């Protein structure tokens, strides 16, 4: 195994044993088939304050006497369960993500690698960003609400009648203010999208339940618009996914179907499942997407002209976000559409039940 070999370096470093694993920026602990520690790289020794003499050869559970290792050992258990970016709080300002990789030889576990990645900086940064977004939302929206409401009061004649000239100016001021409100909305959505690129909390979830809850949330809207919705469930297998984000992605597609389908129209949702993947097909009899617009549908801020006529307030970010989320799951999204006939959106998400099927690049 490459990590057991230590190369003796000639020259100024004579006598120093250097292991390739010391060049990793993450902490690495390697256990043998009996779950005894056989290697702790330099970062692991730094992170947990341990010395090789005290830890090598020791079984996992004995390592829990080291204060900083204890939470990690607790999370993994004596059998070193499979974990993928599992968050572990070691101390108040010390949060890590632990990933274990079994090394199999002839289907038996020969070694287990535990990779511990410090995410304290990322978490703090995430937290600061959320706080900023919340603050910005409130600060910017309060005065613009005040302007909106007072201009509306003027326009509705609540404060006395307006002459034509006054009405025109107030109308323009109102529209301008609505544009500012729209911009604030877009900024908030963008901040959320950037967060959306980094999935968190992946767990096995049922995609049909998610669709069911989206339809439930929109029930009143669907009834009011007299749209016939048919959802064909097939008891698809659970998929490893970030439930909240997949919800956002599918909501954006279904939301469009409802929005751009006229009263009396139909929406058909089908699920196709194979052993590798689950496909969701959302078909509507709505206004469709013009050929000239189709290449830009997933672009940031893009809104088709026919869409803008029906709904002036859309941000043009829904499908951009949805595509990011689906692709972050290793999936695909595409559509077919004909103007005034309707649109079919296809979303495929691969089924990844076992760790190790994930593309390594998605880990970092």
């Amino acid at each position: 195994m490459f990590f057991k070999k230590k190369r003796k370096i000639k020259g100024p470093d004579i006598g120093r044993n250097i292991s390739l694993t010391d060049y990793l920026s993450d902490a690495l602990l390697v256990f043998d088939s009996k779950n005894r520690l056989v290697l702790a790289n330099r970062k692991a020794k730094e992170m947990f304050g341990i010395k090789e003499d005290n830890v090598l050869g020791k079984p996992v559970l004995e390592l829990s006497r080291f204060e900083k290792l204890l939470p990690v050992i607790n999370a993994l258990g004596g059998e070193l369960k499979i974990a993928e970016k599992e968050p572990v709080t070691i101390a108040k300002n010390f949060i890590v993500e632990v990933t274990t990789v079994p090394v199999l030889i002839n289907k038996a576990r020969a070694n287990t690698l535990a990779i511990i990645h410090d995410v304290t900086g990322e978490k703090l940064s995430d937290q600061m960003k959320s706080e900023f977004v919340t603050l910005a939302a409130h600060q910017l929206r309060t005065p613009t609400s005040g302007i909106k409401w007072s201009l509306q009061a003027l326009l509705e004649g609540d404060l006395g009648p307006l002459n034509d000239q006054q009405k025109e100016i107030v109308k323009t001021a109102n529209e301008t203010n609505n544009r500012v409100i729209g911009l604030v909305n877009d900024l908030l959505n963008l901040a959320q999208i950037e967060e959306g690129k980094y999935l968190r909390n992946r767990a096995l979830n049922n995609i049909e339940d998610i669709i069911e809850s989206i339809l439930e949330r929109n029930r009143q809207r669907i009834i009011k618009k007299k749209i016939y919705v048919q959802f064909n469930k097939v008891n698809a297998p659970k998929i490893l996914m970030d439930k909240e984000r997949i919800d956002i992605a599918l909501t954006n597609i279904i939301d469009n179907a409802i929005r751009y389908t006229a009263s009396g129209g139909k929406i058909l949702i089908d699920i196709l499942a194979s052993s590798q993947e689950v496909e969701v097909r959302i078909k509507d009899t709505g206004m469709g997407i013009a050929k000239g617009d189709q290449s830009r549908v997933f672009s940031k801020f893009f809104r088709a002209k026919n869409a803008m006529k029906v709904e002036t307030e859309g941000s043009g970010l829904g499908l951009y976000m949805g595509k990011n989320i689906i692709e972050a799951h290793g999936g695909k999204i595409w559509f077919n559409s004909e103007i005034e006939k309707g649109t079919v959106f296809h979303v495929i998400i691969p089924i990844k039940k076992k760790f190790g099927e994930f593309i390594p690049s998605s880990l970092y």
Partner: protein
Amino acid sequence: MINKILVVEDDKFLRELISHKLKSEGYLVTEAIDGEQGVEKVKKEMPGLVLLDLILPGIDGFEVLAKMKADPELAKIPVIILSNLGQKDDIDKAMEMGATDYLIKAHKSPAEIVEKIRSMTAE
């Protein structure tokens, strides 16, 4: 039929604008400028509806909502959240806590809010 509405809103300008509109539409309006006062007034006045802001000095809107739902007398009173926070987490949290609806102030005019109130009682 709702005839009395409690408005819990700390921003004076917004509070006056929405109260004015509600009064001109024939509703009786009572106001609270923070969370504590909000809880007091709900108990005292038993309004038919509460319009509740979330960011308030002292205890916030979520706490006011929680206190209302914890009291069997007050739990029946419908609550419409009127907030400028619009993140999915906030909306989900409020709806799970029993709010009847969630409106973003910057997106809805007072007339639209009145319409929401009317359609709520018409159901």
